[in-house]
């Protein structure tokens, strides 16, 4: 499908960025290569410029001195050509001079010369201006000529472009002046082709570039290996740490040498040792505690059974006792029952604390379970005058729960409601959604203050210790209920307002420890069977 392909494309596009982010090696190598590339470029560029400069200037100097020599040679030659009578055969001298000049122009790249008469002179004789055959005189620019004339004592030069076989090459024209007796001032122009210098320079530049690239590449490769070497131990440490985290407590790093990596390895191993010891110790402790719990369980129950039996035997004969003894036996019996419940609760609580609780999961329908609990507590509720009502809005399907624990929670909720319900109705709601099921028990009794609500799950905490408990009441009921809910991956929520009533809502996922978002029941749920129960007008209460 098109979106799929597009997504794949974007992923591929982002790959280099991800690679950059995740690979230290890549980053290091890339940065090193980039920076060294920059450095090399700068240095290479500077070197190239300097070399070019020096090459050219040395050639220049050579040319200039040559030009000066040539000019002075010509000059002296012409001066020596003057006969005793003061006349000079300029053309002969010219030829001689040309030979001499040609000889003088010995620097590489010599490309001819020209001897040009300075214009605007009136002289007895005129020597022919000459130039090397085939020389393109346009290289001698008028600008140069005017400069030469205006400053006769200096050697002048100009960079020009020489055309050889259609190629444009760099060149230099150097000039000097000399005087031909009786023929006036002549300008000597020596033309040089600098192509060879250029070629040398180009060669050097190419070599520099190639060398730089090779250098940068070498640096890159070197960096790669060195960094890999350095990171190696770190990578190893990361992998080992991950294995440790997965539970392979035996994993360690190899300790080699004395450097900081070795120090890392040693510290890491020490840490892993300590962690392993701790975990093993705690696991053992948990096991020890579990065993203790079950041993205590057995040890206490046998004498308790004897006491219970004894109490029951006495109780059975209470009619034959004095009223005081009869009452004594009653108290004995009720306290024994209370003791039994407390013992069970305490053992259950310590099982949760030791983490030694396993759910016995069954696929059951929650509605009959709730009905059962209500039936069980019906007599007690009748005693207090509270009608027990059931509103089932959902939750008929099968849920995977530990029925014993859910039963315990519901009995606790309803029991508390009976004790605090002030004889008013107690409604149990059941509902479900896709992910979870909920059971809520709501009463319209005495309610709790916000402080009390915060503490209601505390162990052994009672809202009102003086209140008559009909349902055992060890103070651990809600604490255990909370643990039972948590064991399923669920939660208990409380709503309560003083003088109005309370609601305890249990929400658990359909399968143990599955995730869930919202509870199927609101808190508190409004009764649909008995609308009169819903928020009454407070003024009615006061009236």
């Amino acid at each position, binding site marked *: 499908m098109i979106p799929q392909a597009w997504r794949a494309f974007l992923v591929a596009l982002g790959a280099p960025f991800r690679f950059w982010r995740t690979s230290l090696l890549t980053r290091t190598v890339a940065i090193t290569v980039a920076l060294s590339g920059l450095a090399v470029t700068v240095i290479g560029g500077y070197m190239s410029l300097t070399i070019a400069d020096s090459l050219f200037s040395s050639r220049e100097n050579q040319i200039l001195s040559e030009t000066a020599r040539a000019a002075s040679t010509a000059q002296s030659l012409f001066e020596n050509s003057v006969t005793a009578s003061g006349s000079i055969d300029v053309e002969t001298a010219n030829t001689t001079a040309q030979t001499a000049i040609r000889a003088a122009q010995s620097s590489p790249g010599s490309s001819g010369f020209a001897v040009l008469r300075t214009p605007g002179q009136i002289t007895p004789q005129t020597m022919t201006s000459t130039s090397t055959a085939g020389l393109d005189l346009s290289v001698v620019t008028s600008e140069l000529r005017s400069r030469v004339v205006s400053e006769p004592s200096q050697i002048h030069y100009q960079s020009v472009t020489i055309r050889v076989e259609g190629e444009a090459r760099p060149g230099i024209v150097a000039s000097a002046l000399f005087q031909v007796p009786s023929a006036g001032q002549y300008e000597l122009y020596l033309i040089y082709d600098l192509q060879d210098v250029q070629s040398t320079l180009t060669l050097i530049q190419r070599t520099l570039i190639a060398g730089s690239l090779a250098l940068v590449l070498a640096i890159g490769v070197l960096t790669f290996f060195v960094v890999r070497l350095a990171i190696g131990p770190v990578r190893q440490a990361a992998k080992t740490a991950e294995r440790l985290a997965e539970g392979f407590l035996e994993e360690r790093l190899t300790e080699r040498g004395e450097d900081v990596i070795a120090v890392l390895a040693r510290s890491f191993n020490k840490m892993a040792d300590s962690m392993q010891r701790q975990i093993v110790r705690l696991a053992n402790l948990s096991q020890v505690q579990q065993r203790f719990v079950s041993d205590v*369980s*057995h040890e206490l129950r*046998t*004498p308790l059974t004897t006491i*219970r039996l004894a109490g029951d035997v006495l109780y*059975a004969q209470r009619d034959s006792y004095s009223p005081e003894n009869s009452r004594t036996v009653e108290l004995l019996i009720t306290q024994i029952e209370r003791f*039994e419940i407390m013992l069970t609760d305490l053992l259950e609580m310590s099982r949760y604390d030791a983490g030694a609780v396993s759910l016995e999961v069954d696929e059951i329908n929650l509605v009959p379970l709730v009905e059962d609990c209500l039936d069980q507590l019906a007599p007690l509720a009748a005693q207090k005058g509270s009608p027990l009502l059931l509103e089932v809005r959902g939750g008929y399907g099968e849920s995977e729960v530990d029925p*014993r624990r859910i039963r315990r929670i519901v009995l606790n909720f309803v029991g508390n409601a009976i004790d605090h319900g002030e004889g008013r109705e107690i409604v149990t709601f059941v509902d479900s959604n896709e992910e979870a099921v909920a059971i809520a028990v709501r009463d319209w009794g005495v309610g709790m203050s916000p402080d009390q609500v915060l503490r209601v799950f505390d162990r052994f905490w009672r809202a009102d210790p003086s209140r008559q408990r009909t349902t055992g009441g060890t103070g651990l009921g809600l604490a255990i209920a909370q643990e039972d809910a948590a064991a399923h991956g669920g939660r208990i929520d409380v709503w309560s307002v003083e003088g109005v009533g309370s609601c305890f809502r249990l929400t658990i996922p359909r399968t143990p420890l599955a995730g869930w978002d919202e509870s199927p029941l609101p808190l508190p749920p409004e009764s649909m069977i008995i609308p009169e129960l819903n928020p009454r007008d407070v003024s009615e209460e006061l009236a």
Partner: protein
Amino acid sequence: MSARILVVDDDVALAEMIGIVLRGEGYIPIQAFDGADALLKIAESKPDLILLDVMLPGLTGIEVCSKIRETSGVPIIMLTAKGDTTDVVRGLESGADDYVVKPFNPKELVARIRTRLRPASEGSNTVITLGDVTIDVPAHEVRRADTPISLTPLEFDLLLALALKPQQVFTREMLLEQVWGYHYKADTRLVNVHVQRLRAKVELDPDNPVIVQTVRGIGYKAGGATSAADSAS
């Protein structure tokens, strides 16, 4: 004639107290404080029912139970401090008919004892056939061909309950009520384990039961019934 009940528990005070309770109900208690002693007393006094503590020094209660079951079908009720562990299942698998969790209501204990000691059901005066197994009700015998199959009274009761109504599917709750006398939600493991024990004895292939069939999601029923001449239901 009063029933003799053997109480096997290493806790002296508890054993004595149970004895007092039993005497109050018209039974004759005999006491043993460990497994070896128990086996001796069984040979000597031939009790009608045994109350057996699971945790005993030396031979464990479970070992004693197995030993007893090798030769006798006498009703055995286990006394255990741990009602929700594998101990219970193991105890039942070794042959105990029922179990009671300490601390228990003496009325509860007495009810269990009474159920186990009640006279055999006067159900019907016939022979019932299930597949190739014949149940001779008055003679209290079960045979395949002519080979007798030895069942404990509980196992016989269980088989009979199913066989008397061969078309009826019995839920575990129904069986708990009828065979064990529980009128409230009790441990269905009792039924599961004893059905397994029954199958091990009565079926040709316990993994493919024919006589005692499972009905998934509901319970059990008797299979292969041909005729139940005059059904007393």
